[in-house]
């Protein structure tokens, strides 16, 4: 019996006259690993940002565990503490060490004791292989290391759903691998994830479902085999062929 965590219904988002998302219907079941692929500007990141309420949709509805989300500041913060997000640009707190970055949310949002926050932070820094760097500040870390700390920070909140917004796009090729390895191990551990990515091989390998977006709509979705090996739409084939050549 599958359990729906998130439902997006008829979501539209415009920036001025530019309609970025046109009537998106999308849902996430518990335990799914969903990759959203598509060219730049197709609305992938905006969809993710709408889900985490960093953008307010122009119209449409988002249901979390069956109930519509509320944009009142308090409800919004409670929702966000249960839905983690990892950004392309890491967004770590520059004034805190890796450990403090991971602890702060547990302490002041989840309201746990300092000891518990520290234990949890240590645990997840270990998961991402950054335990040795717990006293380093973001400015002292490489891109890949920063992103691994950012993933640990999100994990510390023990979210029901984890969103990744192009987690490797700001990294040089050598660092992409270390971050993807962490995400891969998370996928295997059963965490529900939605990943916006340009790493096609990675998406094909770890996803339970692949969503292809184009010009603000979901054009096609299915298992990695369906989307990558037997795409139904011409636009999907065209998009994927560029990656095959590369």
């Amino acid at each position, binding site marked *: 019996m599958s359990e729906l965590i998130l439902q997006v219904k008829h979501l539209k988002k415009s920036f001025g006259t530019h309609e970025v998302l046109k009537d998106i219907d999308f849902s996430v079941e518990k335990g799914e690993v969903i990759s959203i692929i598509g060219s730049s500007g197709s609305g992938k990141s905006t969809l993710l940002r709408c889900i985490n309420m*960093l953008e307010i949709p122009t119209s449409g509805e988002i249901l979390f565990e069956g109930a519509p989300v509320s944009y009142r500041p308090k409800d919004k*913060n409670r929702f966000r503490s249960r839905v983690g997000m990892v950004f392309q640009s890491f*967004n770590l707190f520059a004034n805190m060490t890796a450990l403090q970055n991971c602890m702060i949310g547990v302490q002041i949002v989840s309201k746990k004791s300092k000891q518990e926050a520290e234990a949890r932070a240590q645990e997840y820094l270990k998961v991402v292989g950054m335990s040795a760097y717990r006293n380093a500040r973001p400015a*002292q870390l490489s891109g890949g290391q920063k992103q691994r700390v*950012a993933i640990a920070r999100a994990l510390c909140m023990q979210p029901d759903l984890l969103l990744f917004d192009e987690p490797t796009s700001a990294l040089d090729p050598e660092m992409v691998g270390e971050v993807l390895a962490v995400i891969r191990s998370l996928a295997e551990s059963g965490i529900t994830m939605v990943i916006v990515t340009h790493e096609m091989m990675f998406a094909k390998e770890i996803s339970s479902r692949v969503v292809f977006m184009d010009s603000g709509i979901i054009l096609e979705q299915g298992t990695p085999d369906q989307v990558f090996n037997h795409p139904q739409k011409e636009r999907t084939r065209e998009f994927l062929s560029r990656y095959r050549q590369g």
Partner: protein
Amino acid sequence: MSGSLPTTFFEWLIFLWEKYYLDFLRGLGVTLELAVIGTILGCLIGFLVGIIRSVVVDPGSSRMSQVAMSVLKVILATYVEIFRGTPMMVQATVVYYGTMSLWGLDIPSFAAGVLVLSLNIGAYMSESVRGAIGGIDPGQIEGGQAIGMSYAQIMYHVIMPQVFKNLIPQIGNTFISAIKDTSVLNVIAVTELYFAAKSVAGTYYRFFETYFIICVIYFILTFTMSRLLRILGRALEGSRNYELIVDGEGNSEGTNV
């Protein structure tokens, strides 16, 4: 008449200093007092105003709080524009004589001086605070939002510590400026260093010598302060090193690539 009045520039300097050094030192005391209190209050005002003017109102918050916030922001913007757009000497006279003729309030000139200096520093400082808040990478705000932190929590734990650290040199400069700016408060008879000099200068009609003395005093004061602040700044920068912590399992922990 004793007839033994000094004849040369240096003799006058020595003569005036020996005779009036207590007045100069008293004036210097008032100047320092004004500068210290003015800078502290001014920074408090500046941080408060700068933070409020930087608040990004959550589009999900109630209509009432959104309106209240815009009204408050307009009031604060008006305050900043007025105090940045008029000379402090004029502000001092307007506040001092204005409170007297409008409300019959006879506030001591020292209190009026502190008020004007603080409000003036506050106006400039608030703009620096606003700029410093705007200069922090907005990604950090989203990073905080993404783990469920409120705007206030993000400001308190993430943004303001960085803003404050970046503004420490600015606060030092403000203090040095304040030392010099207090001199205009002589127009409302605050007995600071310049006011003391004015009284001394009039006694023997030795204007150049008297003002030269306080010129040297002002310079020694500001120069010492700027050196001290530089040392303090270096100390606050702290170490750029960090320790790698190798646990029992060494580097074999977690996911290794």
